[in-house]
Every structure is written in structure tokens, then in C-alpha cells.
């Protein structure tokens, strides 16, 4: 069943057309990778999907519902969460607080109920405790216990990447968009990341779309791969087919990644 359908989206910035008439569909429960050389428009696709950019034309639907042009917070509420290529963390807040922000949408108490926050039996306090437990689950899942109360700017890069993943997971999304999850990680951390991505899909059943330059990672995790260049689709299919495709090899020519 197709959960995310992108149809003919176009996005330009002044002179450059970053994404040109691109279409693809992601099925429920699969790990779908998007590859392409630098500047191919991969991140722009994500930005269009989660509403940071409004596509010039084309439609994006999620779970059968048209979400084109909605604000990012609406799209997040609908069940799409993501991580960023260059980390967008709440850097002065602790790991725990970052994860609690992942619970923001599910934390349902009003500003009036907040006033009674200090009483153990109030709705607000109960909610806070409940959400805290959910956040602790994520901490446990990603083994972030040692970093729980440290401000994230003070954590090693690899851990920050995990915190960001954790924040996205805490949102209990239906689909997770990961923009270069292994960029900047060393070999060991990358192996861990592969493990976690697979775990997230297998144990939590979350559909995953990954942008990645590291071909090892792409080979290890992908069910299907989409290759793009200059914002246009080159090929789509199984890992082996795509990586063997002449147009993909030409697009990457000179890049040692292949």
C-alpha cells in the first residue's frame, strides 16, 4: 500500500530549478533510499514533503490525504517526522528535553490546565509524567541514558545525530525522513546507525525514506532506491539495478563513492 505519493513536484530558487517534475511513491513498511550527487535536489524533496518549502507545482499526498502546501507543524501532526543533514537540534536544551519536544503534539493540556501543573493529580502533571515515560522509552531504545541530562551542544557529533533521530522517533511517526543519517559518522557509528534504522522499521514498523551518500549504507538497508540528478528522476528500482545503471554511474562519475 502506498503511504507517501509525490507527483510531478517542481521547486525552483530564482534561477536554479532544484526539483523538476519528480514523482515517486513509497510503500508502507519499506526502507526507500534517495541517492544523487551533491546539489541534485534531494534535501529539497524532503523540504517540500514536510512543508518547509512550498512546491511550485505538483502534489504530495500522505496516507491518501493531500498535504501539499500545509505548514510544517500540520504535516508533523499528520505523522511525518524527519532529521536534517546538518543537525537541527535544540542545542541549549538537554537530550531529555529534545525528546520531550518530540512529544509536543501528543502532550495534550491547555494553557489553563498548565496553571495546575504543580499538583500531582492535575491533568497537566499526569500528561507530563506520561510523556516523560514515552521519552524515556526512546532513551532506552537508543541507549542514550548517559546523555539524558546534558545539553546537546556538549555531546559528541555521533550522539547528537542519535538525539535527533530520537526526537523524530519520539513523535511516533508513520513515516520517517532521514537526511544523510550517516554523514560525519565514523565506521563504527555508521554500523550502529544501520542497525538502528533496521530496528526502527522491523520493531516499530515505521516506514523510512533515507537520503544517503554512503553506498554501503544504501546497499545494506534499502528495499528500493531512487536515483536523481538535476532534480529529475534517473532510475528507480532495487539496489543492484540502480547502482548498476549507466545513467547513475555517469552522474556519479569521478565520485569515489561508487
Amino acid at each position: 500500500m502506498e503511504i507517501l505519493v509525490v507527483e510531478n513536484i517542481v521547486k525552483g530558487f530564482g534561477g536554479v530549478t532544484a526539483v523538476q517534475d519528480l514523482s515517486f511513491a513509497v510503500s508502507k513498511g519499506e526502507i526507500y533510499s534517495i541517492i544523487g550527487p551533491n546539489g541534485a535536489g534531494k534535501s529539497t524533496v524532503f523540504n517540500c514533503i514536510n512543508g518547509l518549502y512550498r512546491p511550485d507545482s505538483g502534489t504530495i499526498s500522505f496516507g491518501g490525504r493531500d498535504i501539499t502546501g500545509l505548514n510544517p507543524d500540520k504535516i508533523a501532526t499528520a505523522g511525518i517526522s524527519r532529521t536534517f543533514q546538518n543537525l537541527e537540534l535544540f542545542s541549549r536544551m538537554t537530550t531529555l528535553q529534545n525528546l520531550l519536544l518530540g512529544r509536543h503534539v501528543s502532550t495534550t493540556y491547555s494553557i489553563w490546565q498548565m496553571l495546575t501543573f504543580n499538583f500531582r493529580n492535575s491533568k497537566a502533571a499526569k500528561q507530563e509524567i506520561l510523556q516523560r515515560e514515552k521519552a524515556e522509552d526512546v532513551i532506552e531504545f537508543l541507549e542514550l541514558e548517559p546523555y539524558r541530562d546534558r545539553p546537546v551542544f556538549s555531546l559528541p557529533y555521533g550522539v547528537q545525530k542519535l538525539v535527533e533521530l530520537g526526537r523524530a522517533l519520539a513523535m511516533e511517526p508513520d513515516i520517517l525522513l532521514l537526511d544523510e543519517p550517516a554523514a560525519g559518522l565514523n565506521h563504527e557509528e555508521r554500523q550502529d546507525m544501520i542497525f538502528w534504522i533496521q530496528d526502527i522499521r522491523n520493531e516499530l514498523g515505521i516506514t523510512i525514506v533515507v537520503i544517503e551518500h554512503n553506498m554501503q549504507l544504501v546497499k545494506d538497508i534499502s528495499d528500493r532506491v531512487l536515483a536523481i540528478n538535476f532534480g529529475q528522476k534517473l532510475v528507480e528500482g532495487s539496489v543492484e539495478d540502480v547502482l548498476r545503471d549507466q545513467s547513475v554511474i555517469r552522474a556519479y562519475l569521478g565520485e569515489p563513492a561508487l
Partner: protein
Amino acid sequence: MIVQLLISSLVTGSIYALIALAMAIIYKASEIPNFAQGEMAMVSTYITFVLLSTFGFPFLTALVLTLTFAFLLGILFEFLLIRRAKEPNLLGFIIITLGFQLLLFGLAGWKWGSDQRTFTLPFSESEVVVRTSSFVLTEHNLASLIIAMVIMVILYLILNHTKLGLAMRACQQNVGAAMFNGIPANRILGITFGISSIVGAIAGILVAPITTLDPTMMWDPLVKGFAAAVLGSMKSLPGVVIGGLLLGLIENLFGFYVSLEFKSIVAFGVIMLILFIKPSGLFAKHYIRKV
């Protein structure tokens, strides 16, 4: 009457434009809105006053000495305070410049008291150069326009046709790359503060004869100059000049045709409207951070 209004608009507008330029030069180089700009100019103006009235220097000598003082003041400000900020973020810088502003304000009040003095220049506000049936042009008007114009041309030449200007522009675009190419970015920023301080000082000297010389004399002009800079979008130098002139025009027309009482705040209404439509000012594209 309309001609007279245009003249006053141009005069106030060019003074706003000078202050706006002074702020924009720094903002372009460092993203710091320098709230101490007004007080730096005020202190420089007092220096001119002391040199003229206490020491009896001829005007030109006093001017040269004042501008040298202003330059050093700017450089020292950058070197002693700005450069040493521990967590250099926007709010921190704003606080430092506000702190420096209070410091200078207090020092000036301490030294020169808060009594207002009249400040006379070789070109006076009461001497008329041209008088026709429809308008009057005073010496001060004419001098202000000419001086403002000359400063703008000099700034343009420095920025576009000298090595220093090239280095300044390189630092504005990319500090890292500039340093890599052997440009001492820190020193360039210091010089930028110095130049900006000179421009501000000239604005101060032009303002003093219209208001009077006292420690609060630059408050209003600074706020207006800052507003003009924002209107023209802090980062475009021609933009802030146009912003200044526009502000002068809006104020004077509104003051004459609508209400003199609310003249001083109409500018903010207009700016709010414009920023509502163009959040980064008239002459800049609103930049969306790439993620």
C-alpha cells in the same frame, strides 16, 4: 511650500542616511546593530565643541582632530569590547553596544553636565543662501546636503576602488575564506568600526546646531537612522540611503499635512507596514535558511 518641504526632507533625510550608513557598514561586516553609534557620535561632537570653544582651534583643525578621535573610538570599541564577547550571539552584541552606549552617555553627562549648549558651525542655520518666494535655503541646509553627498561618494570610492574596500567586502561575504586568503579579518572589522564612527561623528556635528548640544542629542536621530537602515534593509548601502531619504520625506510630509504632534512616530507605523510585507526591508530578498 512643496519645495520647502522637499528641502527639509532632503536635509533630515541625508542626516538619517548618514547614521543609517554608519550602522549598516558595521551590520554588513558583523551582523551587529550598533546601538552605541549615537553616543559615539555625541561624544565626538562634544570633542569638536571643546576644541573649538575651549581651545579655540580653527574649524578645519578641530574637524580633523575630531574625526581622528572618532576613528580611534570605533577601533577601541571593537578591540576592547566586541572582540572579547564570550558567547558572540546577537543578543549579547546588542547588550554590549547598549552597555557602551550607557557608559558613554554617563561619561558625557558627568563631564559636560546635562545643560544644553549652543553649538555653532562656520555654516549657520540662520544665514540664508537662497531666498525665493517659495522657499528658503540656509547655509546649514546646503552644507548638510553637500557634506552628506561627499561622504557617500567617498564611502563608495573606498568600498569599491581601494584595497581596503576589497578586503572589507571579502570579509562581509565570508570571513573564513577571507582569513584563508591572508586578510586579517579582525583588523578589518576594527577599521570598519572606525570608519563607521567617523560617519556617525559627521552626522553628529550636523545634528548639533539644529537641536542643541547635550548628551541626549543623538537619541532621536539614532532611532530614526536605525529605522532608516532597517527600512532599506541593513545590508544594502544604497538601500539604507534611500531608506533615510524616504524616512525624511515621510516625516516632513506627514508633519506638514497631517499632524505635527505625531510626526515623530509615523515613521514607525510605515516601517511596521513595510516590514510586514517585506520582512527584510525594501532592498533585500528575505532569506530562507537552507537546511
